[in-house]
């Protein structure tokens, strides 16, 4: 007679457990970086360049020094004397910390003031007199590669023009042959506009250098504290054991808080010079105009098609605008992230991708904004291209996709651009989505509405996203392999603490990691505390971004739990006075195989580890696991959106949004659904309103929330989520796949496809995001595509 615990009751796998972290957040007792005050703390503000491209003729900071309460004014020249005017980026480029020779984008850091009070520091910034000589400004790749274009990075030796890299993936010759055999060739060109992750909390840091101990403690808004520790050790040449990075509660990350920013570096140097804690908290404009942007890629491609609908091959070209410094935070081997994951869900024999990276006078730092390194651009182009191809063939959107999907029995599947997908039920997900939206019925209503002059549209988007970098063979950042870690300490009373190398920013790790331990060991989740973000206590890990926490750190939590269980089994055998082979496990309890009612609980084993271990056994019940995943995880999703477009105004309303996500085993369904809804909202935002653009002088349009539009509760549509398709990951220890970003990655194309679908008959193939009413109105009225980012629009 076994006595296994009810896993849901103890908060194990599959329990929609209420979140542990909420208890402090709902009371206003979170501990974000700006909430921390240290004794003797000073405040830092940054003076930024008002111009996008200019030579600095002189900087006169004397008036700033004279303001009472000012302790230090840092300029590029002062940084240069300490070899800190420039820093290496995560993409093997260099980035100015404080400008010395030139400013290369609007908002670039020019000087810093450290004062008693942030108001005084701001006053002092305004008192700094910088004499600029304006230079010609480049705001897009076309201008950057034009003959005679000024070289933006003239600080670099051997940088002749503005091209950063050429990168090629796939089979060029094979793709050429596929196109020779095509019945139909479908083409599409589009721009995925620049966006900004824009968490509500801006970036910031408090550097605290203690001269007496030589220890540097930095509290900062980072999604990857261990990477920061390594960067500080290498850049500032401080001994790594004397650097402690603490990432307190983070008010949203979405990729924005992965890179190393000049503000962090300046606050650290200021604290070392002044021997006092120095706090830097960015304002919203600083965040929007200078920190990690996302997207800004011009995509064009063509698809070779057989008349019956079979895709024979794909060509894809990408011109990526990286801004003034190539500081993308991504695996080093892949120049444009995982953009070559495009078309992974379709059975396409051959493909070829060419990417080019380009410098412009715009902010640097292409980050994986709620995606796994440029996957969003890849999936967007894929699904827009698929829609265009089906339209060109006159085929049904759903049928064309179904026909070309990788079939369930064909896994593992090598994608035409080199990935190995391992699992999925693509057609089943599509069926669930079509049924939910009432596909056939909607098509009928669409026709009837059209006859009455009303424009209804339906857009389908599917995506499979490579989530959970590594494996370490292929994925590293500056040579540091992309594995992750977990440490589990079970105390003598059977309670436990888990620490990982990840760092959540709202994903609920404090709740879900405990659920994994509960699943593996039967210790109730409420008896387990989770801690992350302190490099002095957490095991080394690469941090939380690109949906890698559950695939990698979450796997490490499962693996370390199994190590603990293996030791507990020995303790159980000792307590039960049988050999280890005679001991069986059920959730929370070992028992004697031949006498199941003779057993010991995991808690009794924990006590024995400290009080009654067998002779020769090392005391304690603690362990650490480093997990190097054999492959990425490959969730799949179908998003279907229906809209009505008002032909008189170009305004479009969302009628329904259906999401079918197959992310394998769901650790906490409530949290998974929260992630999907958040992602869908960002997808809607990008399709509808959210973008950052620049005028011809390089002024950032979108430097505050009045210009950079984010959807509120009023605009955001409701969502219908479906969880009935579950394909466990074949290699993840608990069968989970990443999920935090899928909807933001796959969602935008569903909204855009729906609007384009509503415009059937006008000949319009593309409107670039965001689909602002004036763009849609222009497309309807003039029956033409509206493509390209201002100010290069041909009609401007």
């Amino acid at each position: 007679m076994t006595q296994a615990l009810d896993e849901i009751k103890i908060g194990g796998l599959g329990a929609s457990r209420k979140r542990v972290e909420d208890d402090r957040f709902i009371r206003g007792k979170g501990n974000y970086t700006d909430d921390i005050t240290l004794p003797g703390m000073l405040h830092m503000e940054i003076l930024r360049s008002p111009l996008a491209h200019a030579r600095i003729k002189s900087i006169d900071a004397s008036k700033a020094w004279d303001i009472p309460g000012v302790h230090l004014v840092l300029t590029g020249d002062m940084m240069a004397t300490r070899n800190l005017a420039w820093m290496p980026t995560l993409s093997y480029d260099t980035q100015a910390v404080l400008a010395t020779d030139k400013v290369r984008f609007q908002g670039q850091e020019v000087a810093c003031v450290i004062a008693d009070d942030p108001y005084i520091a701001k006053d002092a910034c305004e008192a700094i007199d910088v004499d600029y000589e304006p230079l010609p400004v480049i705001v897009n790749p076309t201008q950057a590669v034009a003959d005679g274009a000024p070289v933006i990075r003239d600080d670099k030796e051997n940088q002749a023009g503005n091209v950063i890299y050429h990168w090629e993936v796939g089979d060029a010759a094979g793709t050429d042959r596929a196109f020779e055999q095509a019945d139909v060739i479908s083409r599409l060109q589009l721009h995925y506009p620049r966006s900004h992750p824009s968490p509500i909390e801006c970036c910031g840091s408090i550097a605290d250098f203690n001269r007496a101990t030589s220890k540097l403690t930095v509290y900062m808004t980072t999604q990857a504290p261990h990477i920061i520790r390594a960067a500080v050790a290498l850049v500032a040449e401080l001994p790594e054991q004397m650097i402690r990075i603490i990432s307190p509660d983070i008010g949203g990350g979405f990729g924005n808080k992965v890179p190393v920013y000049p503000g962090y570096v300046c606050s650290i140097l200021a604290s070392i010079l002044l021997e006092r804690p120095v706090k830097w908290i960015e304002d919203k404009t600083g965040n929007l105009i200078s920190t990690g942007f996302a997207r800004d890629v011009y995509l064009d491609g063509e698809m070779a098609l057989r008349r019956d609908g079979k895709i024979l091959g794909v060509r894809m070209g990408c011109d990526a605008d990286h801004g003034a410094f190539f500081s993308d935070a991504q695996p080093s081997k892949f120049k444009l992230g995982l953009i070559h994951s495009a078309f992974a869900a379709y059975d396409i024999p051959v493909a070829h991708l060419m990417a080019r990276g380009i410098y412009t006078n715009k902010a640097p730092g292409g980050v994986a904004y709620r995606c796994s390194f440029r996957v969003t651009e890849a999936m967007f182009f894929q699904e827009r291209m698929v829609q265009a191809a089906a339209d060109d063939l006159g085929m049904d959107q759903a049928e064309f996709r179904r026909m070309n999907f990788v079939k369930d029995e064909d896994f593992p599947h090598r994608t035409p651009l080199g990935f190995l997908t391992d699992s999925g039920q693509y057609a089943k997900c599509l069926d669930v989505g079509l049924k939910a939206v009432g596909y056939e019925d909607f098509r009928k209503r669409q026709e009837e509405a059209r006859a009455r002059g009303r424009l209804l549209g339906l857009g389908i988007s599917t995506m499979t996203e490579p989530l959970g970098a590594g494996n370490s063979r292929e994925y590293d950042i500056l040579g540091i392999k992309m594995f992750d870690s977990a440490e589990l300490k079970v105390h003598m009373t059977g309670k436990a603490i888990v620490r990982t190398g990840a760092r959540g920013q709202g994903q609920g790790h404090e709740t879900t990691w405990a659920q994994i331990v509960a699943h593996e060991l039967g210790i109730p989740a409420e008896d387990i505390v989770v801690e992350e973000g302190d490099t002095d206590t957490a095991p080394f890990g690469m941090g939380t971004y690109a949906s890698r926490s559950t695939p990698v750190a979450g796997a490490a939590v499962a693996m370390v739990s199994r190590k603990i269980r293996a030791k507990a089994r020995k303790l159980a055998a000792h307590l039960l006075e049988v050999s280890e082979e005679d001991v069986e496990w059920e959730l929370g309890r070992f028992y004697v195989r031949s006498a199941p009612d003779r057993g010991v609980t995991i808690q009794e084993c924990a006590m024995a580890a400290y009080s009654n271990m067998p002779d020769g056994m090392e005391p304690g019940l603690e362990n650490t696991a480093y997990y190097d995943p054999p492959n990425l995880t490959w969730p799949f999703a179908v998003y279907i959106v229906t809209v009505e477009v008002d032909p008189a105004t170009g305004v479009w309303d969302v009628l329904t949004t259906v999401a079918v996500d197959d992310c394998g085993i769901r650790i906490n369904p409530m949290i998974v659904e929260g992630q999907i809804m958040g992602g869908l909202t960002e997808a809607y935002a990008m399709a509808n309103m959210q973008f950052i653009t620049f005028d011809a002088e390089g002024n950032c349009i979108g430097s505050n929330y009045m210009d950079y539009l984010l959807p509120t509760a009023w605009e955001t549509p409701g969502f219908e989520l479906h969880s009935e398709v579950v394909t466990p990951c074949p290699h993840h220890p608990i069968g989970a796949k990443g999920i935090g970003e899928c909807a933001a990655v796959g969602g935008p194309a569903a909204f855009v496809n729906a609007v384009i679908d509503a415009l059937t008959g006008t000949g319009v193939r593309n409107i670039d995001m965001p689909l602002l009413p004036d763009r849609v109105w222009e497309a309807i009225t003039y029956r033409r595509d509206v493509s390209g980012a201002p100010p290069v629009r041909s009609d401007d």
Partner: protein
Amino acid sequence: MTVVYEDLGDEAEGAAVPVRRIRFSINGKKMIAEVEPRLLLSHLIRRGIGLTGTHMGCDTTNCGACTVLVKGPGEAGGGRPVKSCTMLAVQVDGREITTVEGLAMKGAGEAGGGLHPLQEGFKEEHGLQCGFCTPGMMMAAKALLDENPDPTEEDVRWALSGNLCRCTGYQNIVKSVLWAAAKLRAESAG
């Protein structure tokens, strides 16, 4: 804010920062503060009083993370929602402020830790993720429920349209507020 700095003997006469004395109450507690006229209310609350539950997201009255309730003398109800980054501290002279830390004050120590139904609702319906917008959301929602105890989904969406959230997609926030409204109605009926 108090400012102490090194006396280098070169300070111009009369450069002293002007200071205004104000009296107000915060979460039911009477306070006196001496503040620079330009000091923002959000900074008075966060740095002056040390109540860090009121967050600053944008400093431009857009995101609503810093929303608090301000009640003038003689006004009825629990106060109007105000984005404290766009109100000067001197403007609360003679007024009553309620922040997120004041939501749970009644009945602390009771079952549920004396939480306000809005706080319970946000946890119950997974109405928060990173938690940064949450205090402002709850304060804006409180102002709504003080006026309209039985709001529709549309009422809630409109009342919260001055508060941005980047994590949740709002659907669960709306559910959280409706959960709280139902609980408050049940409590007042019982």
